[in-house]
């Protein structure tokens, strides 16, 4: 599914965020991406979203090289992804329900489908009762769960979650991970970046550890 080959990403000022990274993630896998602050986790996920282009090396998803996609192909590719942003990126002017149903809506899904899916994912993250609140009326953890709901609403075939439990307590974190496991069981590939070693231990899936942009150990 995901195949990185000697991948490097250099930002302005010569900062190596990813350096010579080679790794493979199979279709249907559930993988943790871990490592200290600034290790390159977000950068790797952003490369997978094709928000950034690598400086060197090759990054393939579904057997397609991301760097060589046309902008139309990027659109199509992104529609098959679900992304949980580290900073949530909720739309402040829209209610929770609209925030979640916004994605299927702009992808041209029918109105009933939009509502059905949005209800379902809000229920999954336990926030159906806060449906008509605005994001700024929610606590940090609640906002994070809305961000998770939005990533799942479109039944993506690949979920990329950047620190999705940073604002959640351990019990809730585990619940969310169980949700990811469920989705994963239905065939979706899941990549979760997290610092929470405890969580990784409790979920017990493969963890890829980065440090300074390179692999350190593959547990």
């Amino acid at each position: 599914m995901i195949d990185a080959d000697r991948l490097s990403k250099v930002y302005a000022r010569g900062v190596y965020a990813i350096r010579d990274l080679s790794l493979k993630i199979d279709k249907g896998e559930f993988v943790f991406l871990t490592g200290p602050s600034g290790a390159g986790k977000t950068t790797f996920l952003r490369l997978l979203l094709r928000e950034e282009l690598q400086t060197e090396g090759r990054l393939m998803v579904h057997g397609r090289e991301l760097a060589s996609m046309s902008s139309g192909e990027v659109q199509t590719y992104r529609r098959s992804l679900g992304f949980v942003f580290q900073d949530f990126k909720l739309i402040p002017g829209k209610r929770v329900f609209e925030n979640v149903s916004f994605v299927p809506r702009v992808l041209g899904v029918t109105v009933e489908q939009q509502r059905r899916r949005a209800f379902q994912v809000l229920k999954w993250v336990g926030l159906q009762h806060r449906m008509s609140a605005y994001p700024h009326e929610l606590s940090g953890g609640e906002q994070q769960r809305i961000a998770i709901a939005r990533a799942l609403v479109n039944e993506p075939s690949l979920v990329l979650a950047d620190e999705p439990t940073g604002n959640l307590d351990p019990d809730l974190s585990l619940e969310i991970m169980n949700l990811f496991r469920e989705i994963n069981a239905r065939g979706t590939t899941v990549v979760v970046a997290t610092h929470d070693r405890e969580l990784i231990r409790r979920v017990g899936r493969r963890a890829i550890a980065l440090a300074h942009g390179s692999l350190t150990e593959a547990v």
Partner: protein
Amino acid sequence: MLRALTYSIQEAWESLGRSRLSGLVSVMTITVALLILGAFLVVTSNLQQLLAAWQSAAEISVYVADTISPEQRAALDDLLAGSRAVASHEFVSKSQALARFRAQFADLAPVAATFPHNPFPASFDVRLRQEARQAQTVDSLAASLRKMAGVSDVRYDRVWLERLLLTLAALQAMGWVLAGIVVVGAALTVSNVVRLTCYARRHELEIMRLVGAPMAYVRGPFVMEGALQGGAGALVALLVLWSGFAFIRGRYGEMALMALGIPELRFLPVQLCIGLVVGGMAVGCAGGLVASLGTEAGEGLVSAAPVAEAQATH
């Protein structure tokens, strides 16, 4: 496609409803720009009538000797009819000239009564074409008329002619300057409105970009909102303009017609009104499109800070 349209209209409507003050300001700004443009057009079109009225005054008088033969007069008539500089000409006989004097200078009616015989010469009153109204053209026409047999004198008011020329040129220059300022103002207005729209929609846009939404969905609401605002602005501008026009006409209309000698005070023709509304919508659309493009490219239009912020946390 239909779904994208529905979406665009819904979003545009919602956005207008949500940020009412902001939308109002945008509409009012467009209104003012179009109002100035519209007022300019109304004044211009009425001034043109005024100029036309002025131009119908006689401009060259060709005095004819009392001894002119019918052939000479016919030759003169032909010359004037054949000249490309002449718009129209009219023969004024000796008795007509006397009658005119009596009418114009009623004060001197007793004087006129003392004339032993009619002292006024017959003449041709010649009106010039607008294009030909240049000092040299008139001079050369006058020179060739003077050479004709039976012509006693050719008179024209150079000062009046130059005043007319000058007024036309000044009006034109002022018109261009005003039009230029209005265009710059309108462009700035639209760019300000567009930047505000960009700010207001940046979160939606970012998400759309990141989930791979089709262009129709990304740009649609922008274009729709622009069109709605532009159209509304144009309608309001027309309404205000018409009210102002009706008020002025009601108050000064009759007098204006009498005093200025214009047949009627005219509002903008219907086609131009429709044109203004369509233009307003088009400008709004274009602004919206630029906004959507600008935000996509993610630079320039919005100042440095917000762009940085759009890419904020990694």
